[in-house]
């Protein structure tokens, strides 16, 4: 009745936590202490100023992450934890990307950007900065498409998520 099958996948874990110093360190420590890498992390206030929402993307084994989720829930400063990967959820990520753009390539980039509903927020002689908000998969696809133009810099917000209902 034991199963040691590993199911490695990306988990989106979101937690409502007390908006207090030390909370983040505690949570990150719990995860990194197991040798797991937090791929992205986003923290921000909620409608209640004493509560923050934290969203993490952690690749790992299903069982281990279930245990991690339970351990997070045990922390005094953690009000509620959900592994959204187990439910249906909405996710978004915001990115800023600077790509090399010459007069020749500029219009092609803008055309692609349009398809994704992406905004151009700065244009320089040899580069431009684009902003995209979308589902994480789409954002990742978009970055793939930008690669041939030479990405000079990327800043990703990390995924934020919410259960569908």
């Amino acid at each position, binding site marked *: *009745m034991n199963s040691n099958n590993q199911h490695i996948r990306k988990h989106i874990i979101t937690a409502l936590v007390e908006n207090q110093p*030390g909370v983040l360190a505690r949570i990150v*420590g719990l995860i990194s202490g197991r040798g797991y890498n937090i791929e992205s992390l986003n923290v921000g206030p909620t409608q209640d100023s004493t509560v923050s929402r934290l969203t993490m993307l952690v690749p790992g084994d299903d069982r281990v992450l279930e245990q991690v989720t339970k351990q997070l829930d*045990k*922390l005094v*400063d953690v009000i509620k934890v959900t592994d959204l990967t187990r439910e249906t959820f909405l996710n978004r990520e915001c990115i800023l990307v600077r790509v090399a753009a010459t007069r020749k390539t500029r219009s092609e980039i803008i055309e692609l950007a349009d398809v994704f509903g992406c905004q151009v927020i700065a244009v320089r002689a040899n580069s431009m900065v684009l902003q995209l908000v979308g589902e994480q998969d789409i954002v990742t696809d978009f970055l793939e498409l930008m690669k041939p133009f030479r990405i000079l810099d990327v800043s990703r917000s990390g995924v934020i998520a919410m259960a569908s209902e």
Partner: protein
Amino acid sequence: MRTGAKCVVDAIRDAGVKTVFGLPGGTVLDIFAELYHAPFEFFLVRHEQGATHMADGYARATGKPGCCIVTSGPGATNAVTGLATANMDGIPMVCISGQVPSSMIGNDAFQEADTVGITRAVTKHNYLVRRTDDIPAIIAEAFQIAKSGRPGPVLVDIPKDVQRGKTEATFSGTVNRRGMKPIYEGQPRQIAKLAKAMNSARKPVILAGGGVIAGGASAELTALARKAKIPVTTTLMGIGGFPDTDPLALRMPGMHGSVAANSAISECDLIISVGARFDDRVTGKISEFAPHAIKAHIDIDPSAISKSVVVDLPVIGHVKPVLRELIKLIEPADRREWLARCRKWCTESPFAYDAKETQLLPQFVIEKISEVTRGDAIIVTDVGQHQMWAAHFYQYTKPRTFISSGGLGTMGFGLPAAIGAQAACRNRNVVTIAGDGSIQMNFQELVVAVEHDLPITVVILNNGYLGMVRQWQEMFYRKEYSAVRLAQNDRARNEKIAERPPAYLPDFVKLAEAHGAVGMRVTRKNEVTSALRKSFAIRRPVVVECIVKPDENVYPMVPPGASLTEMLQSIA
């Protein structure tokens, strides 16, 4: 208006604490100035690790949170081992540490350490207090957190200026943290499912752990086991939770478990963990643990469920109310065959040693301690072979009579924890069972027992080795005894020191006397009982050093990583 320091001492008093352990320093001078007037018995330790283990021993003996106070920097880092020890075993404790003034934090100030950072992973919760106003509420909360759910140690780090500040703040009422949500009652549906499984099981076993002790549920456990006729194995942390003298008792499971416990686990069709977390020292090879069994687990800590062993029937809740509900739902069953099989294992393969051996054996000494105290003492162990023998050869019948560092396995725990236990239970016989290695890690605390007139008996089973490590080297490392010989002869070539070593190094009898205690040395079997009797009669701290056979091993032994069926009874 009260100072922060006064708030600290008042809050400790309001939490019901009467005994405080600690050692002062620059950043806690204000608190100690208040302690001078406080209604506590204060135990001045000689090393902060001692303070944490004393608070821990106090908590294990009583179930009430222990309390200790240490200074910043080295005081706090010295407390880390004790916090980690308590954290692993779920022992309620509040440790107050001083911190450099707020304005100097982060500046590498004298005796500064990032105490909350360092202790984050070894405490249930910790605080860095920023405002004097917060002290009353935080300390009340700290005690509450230490006790609630799965108990554990809480550290409160208070900068010096915060202690010196003044406040009108008070705290009364109840602590209510939205992040704290221990589940007390189990879900009726889960309990009913478990009861059904128990009623239909033909070969069930109960695995009772530390949760039974922490939850004060040994009466319920005993009633359930007897009504349902289910044999019980008690983990190291669960010892005393079910009487060893009961015919249903299978004793301890795991690496150094009994044949009965390990065989029953390996054959059973249902295993019910009651507050036992399936520690790797209990399960052996996980994939072969209780291979035929449905696995049930009652625990107050949801994160303990399916942590190692995947559980089929979880019940999240406090063991006491859950067991009470189960008792109602259990139907008497006919398990004569299974019980007879378990009894047979118990009688045919009890914990045993060579009774014909003429040299003094450590197991024999422990059996005598059991006889002389009639199983009614509080036994506190250190860590090593003697710890396992203390689990095997003493008959425990009551909870909180076996105190041992199970999870962390902290050598040096025994003596200070015994002092804490005796401080709480003045009229009991408290016996430390230590190895010659472990006892040297905190021997200095013996003076604290002398100062406070605590009549502890410290039995040192001196085998001249770090015995447990020697046993592993004998069994698994080609008998190459590296850095385990404590006596001066027969050492590895690169470990020789003295040309003409003294006969005893250290001389524990003289060492005891130098600390103001009584010292005795026992070398022969026929001296043991009288030495023990004498030590209990004196009602002073006594050290009884027993020179025992150097190379005795703990059996049975399940080699690391092997299944529980692979018990070695001797070296092949």
